[in-house]
C-alpha cells in the first residue's frame, strides 16, 4: 500500500480496497440515524475518496459544523474538488423562486416543479460529479444520500426512486467501481406504504445494511439505541 494522504489506519485502508462497488443502506427506526451519514462522510473524505453528497434534509453549514468535530472541513474538501455537495434545500429554493431561464434544465431538484417524478436530472448530476477527470487522483468515488425518504414527500413515485438508485448503481458501482451509501427512515408501525416499499426493495438490493434502532423500552438519555449490522460482506484477509 502506498502511503495514503489520509488519517486512516492500515486496517481501515484495507477495508476500503476490499469494499468497493457496493451499496450500503442506512436505516433508522424510532431514532435519528443521521450520525451514520456524518460518519461515512468524514470517513470517505479522510480516505481520499471523491464524494458526491446529495444532502436533501439539512443545510450545508449543519453538515460542515459536525464534520469539523469529526476532523474534516467540508469547505476545504469542496475547494480542492474532492467533495461535490448538492444542497437540496437551496436547489429547491432556486427552482421555486428563481427565474425560469436561470433554473434552466440542469437543476437537480427541478422535478419539484416540472413533471413531478423524473429524477433523470439528478442522476445526470451525480454521474457527471463522480466521473473521473484526468487530473483527479482521488480513490474510489462515493455517492452519499441523506435521505431518500424525502424524495417521496416531494412527489416522486417509489418506482422512480428505485430507478434512480438502479441507474446510480450502474454508473457508480459497476462502471466507476465506487460505493453508494443511502439513508432511509422506516418505522415498524408505519402507514407510509410507499416508503416501506422503497425500504424493503433497497434492503433486498444492498450489500450491507446498518440499522440504527431506538430502544424498544422508550427514550433514554444516555443510551440512544443500538446499531445492527445485517448482510455483512465477507472480508478477504489482507495481511502482508
Amino acid at each position, binding site marked *: 500500500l502506498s502511503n495514503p494522504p489520509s488519517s486512516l489506519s492500515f486496517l481501515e485502508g484495507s477495508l476500503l480496497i476490499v469494499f468497493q462497488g457496493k451499496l450500503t443502506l442506512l436505516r433508522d427506526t424510532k431514532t*435519528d440515524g*443521521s*450520525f451514520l451519514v*456524518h460518519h461515512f462522510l468524514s470517513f470517505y473524505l479522510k480516505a481520499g475518496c471523491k464524494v458526491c453528497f446529495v444532502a436533501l434534509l*439539512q*443545510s*450545508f*453549514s*449543519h453538515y460542515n*459544523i*459536525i464534520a469539523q*468535530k469529526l476532523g474534516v472541513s467540508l*469547505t476545504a474538501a469542496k475547494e480542492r474538488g474532492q467533495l461535490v*455537495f448538492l*444542497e437540496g*434545500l*437551496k436547489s*429547491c*429554493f*432556486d*427552482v*421555486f*423562486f*428563481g*427565474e425560469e431561464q*436561470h433554473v434552466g434544465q440542469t437543476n437537480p431538484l427541478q422535478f*419539484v*416543479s416540472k413533471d*413531478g417524478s423524473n429524477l433523470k436530472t439528478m442522476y445526470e448530476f451525480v454521474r457527471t460529479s463522480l466521473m473521473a477527470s484526468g487530473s483527479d487522483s482521488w480513490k474510489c468515488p462515493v455517492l452519499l444520500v441523506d435521505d431518500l*425518504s*424525502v424524495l*417521496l*414527500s*416531494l*412527489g416522486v413515485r417509489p418506482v422512480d426512486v428505485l430507478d434512480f438508485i438502479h441507474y446510480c448503481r450502474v454508473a457508480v458501482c459497476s462502471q466507476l467501481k465506487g460505493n453508494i451509501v443511502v439513508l432511509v*427512515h422506516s*418505522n415498524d408501525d*408505519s*402507514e*407510509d*406504504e*410507499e*416508503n416501506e416499499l422503497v425500504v424493503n426493495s433497497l434492503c433486498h438490493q444492498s450489500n450491507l445494511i446498518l440499522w440504527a434502532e431506538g430502544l424498544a423500552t*422508550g*427514550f*433514554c*438519555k444516555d443510551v*440512544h439505541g443500538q446499531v445492527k449490522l445485517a448482510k455483512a460482506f465477507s472480508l478477504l484477509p489482507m495481511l502482508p
Partner: protein
Amino acid sequence: MAALATGGATPSDGATSFQRKVPASSRLAAIAGTRPSVRHGQLLLSSGLPSLDCVLGGGLAVGTLLLIEEDKYGIYSNLLFKYFLAEGIVCGHNLFVASAKEDPADILKELPAPLFDDVHKNQVDEKETAIKSKQESQESMKIAWRYQNLPKMEVSPAASARFGHYYDVSKTVSPELLKSIKWHRFFLPEEMSLHPEIKTCNMTCGYTRLLQSIQRIIYQEGFDGSYPQKKQKNILRIGIQSLGSVLWGDDICCTDNPEDIFSLTKFLYVLRGLLRMSLSACIITVPAHLIQNKAIMERVTNLSDTVVGLESFIGSERETNPLYKDYQGLIHVHQIPRLNSLICDVSGTKDLAFRLKRKQFTIENKKIINIATLINN
C-alpha cells in the same frame, strides 16, 4: 440556525452556498430575545412558554420550525400559537401572521398581555414550595421556577432582557405595545381576491402564495442577510394557523383519498429552505386529528424540526378522572431537532401533562402527578 447569505449571491450562481458570515458569538447573541444554546452555540428563541422551552432543551433554534398537532377543538394549540407571537412582541421581533380563517389583525388584538410585575411572583411562590417537595429530581421544573428570580421590575418591553416571559390570558395585549412592533399579514381570502389564479410547482394555490409572501418579506426586510450594513439584526417570527385545513384549499383533512397528498409536504420542504437561510422561526398548527392518511403526518413530522402534539381532556373520560383534576391535557413531544451536533439535548421525560391557569401554563411530568395524587389520597 443562523446561516446568512454571502453578499452578492444570485439564484443562478450555483457555486455559492449559504455560509455563516459572522462568527456565532457575540454579534448574533446581541439580538433581543435570543440566547446561544449551551451545548452547541445554536441561537435560541423562547416559544413564549418557559416550561415548553425547558422541555425543548432551552428554546427554539433560529431557522427551525415548530409544528403543533392541534388538540381536538384547537383551543390549546391556538393558545400556544398566541404565546409564540406574544413573545415576539415583548422581544421586539417582527411578526408574520398567516391564517385562512381569522384576520391576522384580530389574532394580534387577542394576544395575551405580558406580565411585568411582582404580583405574579408572589402568587406563584406559594405553589412553588408545594410542588418542589414532590419533584426533587425534576430538573426541568426547577429551571422554570428560576425565571422567578430574575429582575422583576420591567419598565418597558424593549428593555426586557429576559429570556421567556409569562402572560395573563385573561387580559389582551395593549394596543400601544402592538403598535411598537412591525408585523406582516397574510389572510388567504384577501390574497385570493387580489390576484388571479396561479399554480406553481403543482402545489395548492394558497400554499404557493404564502411561500411567495414569506420569501418576499424575508428578502425585502433583510432577514436573509441581504443588507449586511444594517446595524441591528432582528428575528422574524412566522405563525401559520391550521395549515392543511380545508380553508387553505387542501383536501387532506376531509377525505380518505385526497387529490394531492404532496402539497403540504412540498410546502414544508420549501419553507424549511427559507427558514434555514434566514433569521427566523416558524410555528405552524396542523389539525392532525382530521388527516385520515397517516402517512402524510409521518412525512410532515420528518420535514419538521420540533413536533409537539396536544391532547386535551375536554369531552374525554379523563376529564372526570381525579388523577387529572387540575390538568387540562397532555403534551406529546414527538420530535426534537439535532442541529449542528451528533446528539440532541432533551429532557429525559416524554410523559407530560399541562395545566393552564390565568397567569401560567405549566407542563409537568405525568408520572410525578400520579405518584403525588396517590400519596395525597
